[in-house]
């Protein structure tokens, strides 16, 4: 699971208010190279919740991201860090934890399981 998708996920258990972002508990993190695509990065930059990305990256062991998204979108070194955090860090094993209820969504073999149990629906 990459941070791009962590940035989209919430805890959708019935009644929960503080759903986003989910805390990452990392057990196994892998780095995989991905081709750099400027159009894609710019498109994503507009949609990403920055703070969640920065915190998520720290949980995966990467602290190079600036606290605020650069206004200069063409800054190459910034874009490279953004690309790395967004797409190249993989959470293979671990879990995503809801900050309000502590409910754990397991991540196994890189796939997060967001399915709710019968009593959470």
């Amino acid at each position: 699971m990459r941070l791009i998708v962590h940035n989209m996920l919430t805890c959708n258990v019935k009644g929960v208010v503080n759903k986003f972002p989910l805390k990452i508990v990392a057990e196994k993190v892998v780095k995989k190279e991905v081709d750099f695509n400027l159009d894609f990065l710019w498109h994503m930059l507009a949609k990403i919740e920055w703070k969640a990305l920065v915190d998520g990256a720290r949980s995966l062991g990467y602290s190079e991201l600036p606290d605020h998204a650069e206004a200069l979108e063409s800054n190459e070194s910034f874009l490279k860090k953004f690309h790395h955090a967004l797409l190249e860090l993989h959470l293979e094993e671990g879990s995503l934890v809801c900050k309000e209820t502590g409910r754990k969504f397991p991540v196994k073999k890189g796939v997060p399981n967001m399915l709710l149990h019968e009593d959470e629906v």
Partner: protein
Amino acid sequence: MWFLCVFYHRLLDFRKPEVEALAELFGEDESIQWRLPEHHHNDTPFHFVQLSSEDIAQNIAKRSILVKGMYELWGQGASYEELKHSIETFPDSRKLPFLSSDSTFRISVETFGKALTFDEQRERINSLTYIPFQGKVSLKNPDHNFFIMEMDESEENNGLQPILQRRIFFGREVGFADRKLLPTFQLKSRNYLGPTAMDAEMAFLMANQAKAASGKLVYDPFVGTGSILVSAARFGSMTMGADIDIRVVRDGRGPDCNVWSNFKQYGLPTPVALLRMDNNLPPWRSGLKEIFDAIICDPPYGVRAGGRKSGGRKILRGTVDPYTVPEDKRTDHIPSTGAYSLVECVHDLLHLAARMLVMKGRLVFFFPVLRDENGSEVKFPEHPCFKLVAVSEQILSSRYSRVLLTMVKVEPYSEVIEEAARLMHLEFRENHLKWLEEGNIHSSVFKPSDSSESHTDTKSFKDPKPKYRGKYV
């Protein structure tokens, strides 16, 4: 500029929509015009299409699955005399640049519906002496490729309309199909398959309808083995998929036989994410919207694979209250899922697309239809955010077909629109009640035919499908 577009004689309904989608992808602003050659019907391989430039024609041909080639027409006629006259009237200023002495060329003869001997082909090529070819002939990789295409008159054939007069075309090739694409990606050599894996040809067609391209993010909410995403990835998109069945999406059949390995097999970038989730209860954060450039999918119709959503069937019916699984059994518990009708599934899909697609983004999905002998109007699901731009039918059996619907997002999502959409959904569901009465589409497809129909009254039993149309035509 008008070009001669020659199609493969396959998946007839899909041909023009594919070209139209690709034209838009490669820069056409206005909708493109089509014309038929004289005496030809709509199912002919030959169509004239108006495009802004040769570059666009070339790009379309190269990426298209159903276009055999695009040609600049130099002449046409019902006989070789008429052809000569037609070519002679084609302006020299358009011809001479491609006939120069420092270029290489080749002339090929293609016939449709018949075969010619080598001598017959040569005779036709030699009849073109009135064209001042200055260059040298090269059969391998010539600079310019010319084609004589001949199609004879034909009678009505298994429901295919007749062609009243022979037609001969002469053109310069400006674009041709990538013939290596399908053999490379065909399912029979695919690493990880499932029962509903999308056929490679169809998956590429869907990716073309969705205008998948580099820099775009494509989502499949019913990803299964990833067959649709593989095609989108081949065309350069970043991909993302979700499924409610965790065994398919996470485990596959082993560490080297799963969705990820399907991408690695072709050297394609793996999806940015694969998730296990329920489309009926999605976990997206509330501010998230307009993030996908395209959503391409094949939702479960309930015929060979049924949809599922959260909540066991007893819970959904209210027979049993939601139960709590004890703490120690929770980690590996696989939550019960219940029946998820096609209508509800499509409503959720439209809702997802309305919110998550960028403006002008495309939703491309299959929808099953029962083939009515009366040929009554079929109603498709609608949503106020979307404009339906293409409907292509693939006939699966005499009882049912599936149609590929292409919808473009034209209105931004809002609460107001969501209310209007909900009402549209209720109305649509009403009209689908007849399926629900018969049980569902599954039983309609698989019920044995009435013996009275086929034995006694052969006159009134009409096969609604003309014989020349089948699953691949």
